[in-house]
């Protein structure tokens, strides 16, 4: 009996670890390939250590895309979008969680109903609207439609219901705080860990967003990193090493964020989920 259970433990560990290797090995390839030339990437037998082509790859990448500018664009767009998402969603979520007002149910139901309509069905009108507002190819064109994620309000409402106690709000009112003061001085501080956790997930989504920026951003200096990378792809001989280096660079900010704020990251994934 004892022997049987240790051997089954070994099998369990073995499966888990083989899985980990399968999942992390492509990432390892991404990193080493960004140091290799095309002939090294396709050499036989395969070269599984970093190569010496880093500088060539980087200068090639700088020819193909505006590396520094596109990273700044992504950082700027992500920062503004996430701050806006958290602010608007928590404010509306607070109203839905803690107040009774006329039209509350209908307004909330409307929000949930539109969640079923895919963004792709509305992307063409959005494109036309942006052109007519003269906002095509601007930061605003990327940021504005991203500011109002319906599920953000939904998650915020759930979290505020669970975390912020009514006594706290009543105490604030007794102390003469305005409703806005209650939001700023009571709700937001209590909500901080949730905001951090959701912020991570929103940041990841915005940073890696591809479909809409690809459509609305057109000039070299306005692109986000992901769109700039995708635009390098073409029918001609592709600079694989440079593409991998660009991919690696685009991953770094998120990876750093993750290493420092891992706890929030994992929590953010399961906010409002099923336990």
């Amino acid at each position, binding site marked *: 009996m004892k022997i049987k259970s240790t051997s089954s433990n070994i099998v369990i560990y073995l499966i888990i670890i083989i899985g980990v290797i399968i999942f992390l090995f*492509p990432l390892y390839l991404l990193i080493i390939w960004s140091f290799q030339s095309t002939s090294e990437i396709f050499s036989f037998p395969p070269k599984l250590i970093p190569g010496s082509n880093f500088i060539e790859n980087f200068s090639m990448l700088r020819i193909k895309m505006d590396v520094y500018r596109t990273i700044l664009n992504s950082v700027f767009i992500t920062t503004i979008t996430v701050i806006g998402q958290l602010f608007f969603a928590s404010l509306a979520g607070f*109203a839905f969680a803690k107040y009774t007002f006329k039209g509350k149910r209908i307004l909330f139901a409307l929000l949930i109903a539109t969640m079923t309509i895919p963004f792709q069905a509305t992307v063409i009108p959005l494109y036309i609207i942006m052109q007519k507002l003269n906002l095509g190819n601007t930061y605003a064109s990327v940021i504005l439609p991203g*500011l109002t994620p319906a599920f953000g309000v939904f998650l915020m409402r759930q979290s505020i219901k669970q975390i912020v106690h009514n006594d706290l709000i009543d105490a604030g009112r007794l102390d003469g705080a305005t409703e806005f003061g209650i*939001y700023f001085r009571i709700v937001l501080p209590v909500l901080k860990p949730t905001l951090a956790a959701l912020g991570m997930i929103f940041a990841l989504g915005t940073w890696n967003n591809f479909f809409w920026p690809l459509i609305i951003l057109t000039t070299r200096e306005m692109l986000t990193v*992901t*769109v700039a990378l995708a635009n390098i792809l073409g029918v001609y001989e592709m600079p694989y090493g440079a593409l991998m280096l660009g991919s690696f660079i685009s991953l770094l900010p998120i990876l750093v964020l993750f290493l420092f704020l891992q706890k929030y990251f*994992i929590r953010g994934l399961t906010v409002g989920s099923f*336990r």
Partner: protein
Amino acid sequence: MFTLKATNIRQYLTGPKIAPYVFISPFYILWAIFGVFPIVYSIWLSFHRVVGIYKADFVGFYNFTEVFLREDVIKAFYNSIWYAVVNIIGQITIALLVAVLINSKCVKLKGLFRISYYIPNMVSTVAAGILFSILFQTNGLLNMALNTNITWLHSTFWSKPVVMIVVGWRWIGYWIIIFSAALQGIPDFFYEAASIDGANSFQKFWYITLPSLRHVMLFAVVINTIGGFQLFGEPYIVFTAKQSPVGPLNSALTPVIAIYKAAFENFELGFAAAIGWVLAIITILATGVQINLWKKER
């Protein structure tokens, strides 16, 4: 007198009656302009043929009949069903298996394992797509490792599975995290009671674990259905779809890429909107059916 009035108004505006409207209005104003108005506009568009940006002719259901007459669009919808089914079965099975193994009592370092599986989710679709398109080249590393000569990216048989591998690589770790959270919520005494009754591991999994995961499973099924129907980035990048077919004979084409091509390569805006609405209706129907079946089966 005047100052008193002003404070009254301010108190009224910031009081509990009006405050909730003030709180929701920034969100709802933005959402009305960039979320709701495009939906209405898009319905209108799907019944029109747009000529330039300012002129549009009403064409009735012409755009919708076109959706069902064009071979590549039909193929895109067929592919999307394939993607959705494989997405559901593949991702959920693998993620559930790994999550259950990691959560078994004897395993240490649970957190580290979960995070290791999750890390690929942080790689963007674009980076992942480029990475795997190199890996799957005919003279690429995968064929070297397997000692095979499979034309992964140039075969109508392999094009969709390759896309699914890229999608799975990025998302299975996410589902492992989600399933793990749900597994941790199952009380230990459920399993202890079953042990006393003499249940084996498989029976415990079948009669305790699976039923306890009902809600999260429905969530996973619905999200993976939507994900499969609405694929864009992975096939677009892996097959460098700009100005070219998506996979050999469009075998990896998706409805969303069809929308993109119709609108921004061929400038058939009304037609593109119609594809979008057919996709929306199929998505809503499919997920609605799933939710209802799930509820009935209780």
